[in-house]
């Protein structure tokens, strides 16, 4: 029985991690990655890569919790290994601060991150405009290093990666047996998903190596995330905006908001603006589908729509997508053995 050919479309954190998971769970498959963009030009490259989950309104919480746990656990092991710096994974501690006490004082992920606790009065003095806060330690995936490391791991399995713009999943039918759709915002066009919408995020990446903690306003709009070489300052959440051009007025506003949380940022150097479109949905689409055209079938596994929370759940959804690919394989093998009768 010839080995099955799986095409993964998309080379952001979701595409790369899903492809890697498939090689792990389906060793008899050949996996090929197709994407029009690779690091450093993906949406993932703009993101800070902080493991602080976004809550999807329509994905069951236990599933989001499971995805986050798997992702956290996977990355924690890398951060504590010799591969950490190459993979760009490191621990970072800090504070999430609120101007008014949130309704939900214990987020669903509080027992997955490390050392989660409310901030003391003394700690809150650093944030005079905020009256409540949470302190914890979590992980950060620095991009491009993390994507490049995933690419390297994928190549080591013998998988091929090609630059190619796929305009229709059907064009892959003859060459591949199963298609995995990890196209993020691209799914809007590629599979016509009108429930997928962009939430534009502008950030600044600055040189401020004395900033060792993350600081996040609970409203999700203002944040300071220190990475290996640069600190990401954010941000914006512009629902429905497709513009990838950085706006200087927005940049100044982000800078001002971040300086009011961390005054020492006034001394930040080498400020660069970046924009990404969060591929947002009410629930992350991790789902099997069988496309059918004139009696011909094409099994598809979707894994897209992670919005603001891609890094936080990427490994968990990649595992789930790989599992769905396994189901596609069983279905194909089942029907092929029936065909032999």
């Amino acid at each position, binding site marked *: 029985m010839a080995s099955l050919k799986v095409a993964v479309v998309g080379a952001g954190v979701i595409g790369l991690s899903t492809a890697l998971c498939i090689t792990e769970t389906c060793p008899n498959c050949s996996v090929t990655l197709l994407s029009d963009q690779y690091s450093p030009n993906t949406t993932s490259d703009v993101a800070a890569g902080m493991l602080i989950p976004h809550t999807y309104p329509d994905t069951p919480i236990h599933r989001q919790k499971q995805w986050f746990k798997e992702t956290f656990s996977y990355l*924690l092991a890398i*951060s*504590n*290994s*010799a591969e*950490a*710096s*190459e993979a*760009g*994974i*490191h*621990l*970072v*501690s800090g504070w999430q601060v609120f101007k008014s006490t949130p309704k939900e004082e214990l987020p669903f992920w509080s027992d997955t991150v*490390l*050392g989660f*606790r409310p*901030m*003391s009065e*003394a*700690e809150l003095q*650093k944030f005079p405009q905020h009256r409540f806060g949470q*302190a914890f*330690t979590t992980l950060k995936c*620095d991009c491009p290093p993390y994507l490049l490391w995933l690419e390297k791991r994928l190549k080591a399995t013998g998988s091929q990666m090609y630059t190619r713009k796929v305009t229709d999943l059907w064009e892959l039918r003859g060459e591949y047996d199963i298609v995995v759709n990890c196209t993020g915002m691209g799914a809007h066009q590629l599979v016509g998903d009108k429930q997928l919408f962009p939430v534009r995020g502008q950030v600044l990446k600055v040189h401020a*190596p*004395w*900033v*060792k*903690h993350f600081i996040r306003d609970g409203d999700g709009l203002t944040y300071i995330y*220190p990475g*290996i*070489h640069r600190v990401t300052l954010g941000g914006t959440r512009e629902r429905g905006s497709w513009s990838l051009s950085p706006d200087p007025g927005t940049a100044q506003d982000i800078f001002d908001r971040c300086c009011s949380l961390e*005054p*020492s940022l*006034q*001394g930040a150097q080498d400020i660069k603006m970046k924009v990404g479109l969060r591929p947002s949905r009410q629930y992350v689409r991790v789902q099997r589908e069988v496309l059918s055209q004139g009696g011909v079938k094409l099994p598809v596994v979707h894994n897209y729509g992670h919005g603001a929370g891609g890094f936080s759940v990427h490994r968990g959804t990649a595992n789930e997508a790989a599992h769905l690919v396994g189901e596609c394989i069983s279905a194909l093998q089942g029907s092929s053995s029936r065909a032999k009768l």
Partner: protein
Amino acid sequence: MRVAVIGAGVIGLSSALCIHEQFHGLVPSLQLEVYADHFTPHTTSDGAAGLWQPYLSDHGNLQETLWNKETFDYLLGHLHSPAAKEMGLFLISGYNLFTEPVPDPSWKNIVLGFRNLTPKELELFPGYSHGWFNTALMLEGRSYLPWLTNRLTQRGVKFFHKKVESFQELFAQGVDVVLNCSGIRAGALQPDPELQPGRGQIIKVLAPWVKHFVVTHDLKSGIYNSPYVIPGSEFTVLGGVYQHGNWSEENSAKDHKLIWDSCCRLLPALQKAKVVGEWSGLRPARPSVRLERESIRLGNLQAEVIHNYGHGGFGITIHRGCAMAAARLFGSILQERKQPGSPPGPRL
């Protein structure tokens, strides 16, 4: 009134600044001079990583704990000032690790967010069964000392690159008060068998992914004889050597290997860190800090020395509290000499 400070490490410079800040307005004739054979970046203070953290136990020395607190609070108050970056001052969090239970330290309520480590956190550090997490401060000597020097220069304080051989030498030139902040070399000015070197060696590496300090403790081998990793604003310091009585300032290959191997075992990610430097220094260790006045008779003159040395491995941690105390001692000298503008005594 001429005041000479011997020593240009963190203790000498901060003492000079406190005295000038508090008394230059009150004593119009005040002339402050700093004498040292080493200036930044060649002082002991420059080699220190700059982490604010006292030893595990203050051995009942409450005064030192109060000076530590005064220093922490002073620095915390400057955290949001525009000077913070130039001072080399920033917040840092991290881990203290132990192989056995340890009583809470004297500084647990001075630092921010002090707590015990959770079981999941301890899993990150195999071999360690207990630990603390807290947020403290970094004050990098290679920034702080130049900042202090600039503040002093702006105030008209003069600097002299000179090895002072005796207190008498300065008094003979007309100096009225000497501040002895000579650190490890205080014994050359006045014998002090209690002052001993606590030799340390560090490796400087590039490891910008390390965002926390990690200080391990081996209660049997004593403070700082166990690996530690302290990330600065530019490079990360690896250390873990404290050799009592060893005067060598040469880097030892054996110590290098010990530090490198033990730090990489502690944080495997360090295996990929690039070594960019190495340094040895002598912590000016003493059972307690010598911070006191001494009147020296020179013929028919009474000369005053204020000693401020012996801060071991916690000089940066305690410097401001000691500098303020030294300034108070100076104030008492002024009062006794009934200098115009000195703090008023009881009216007769």
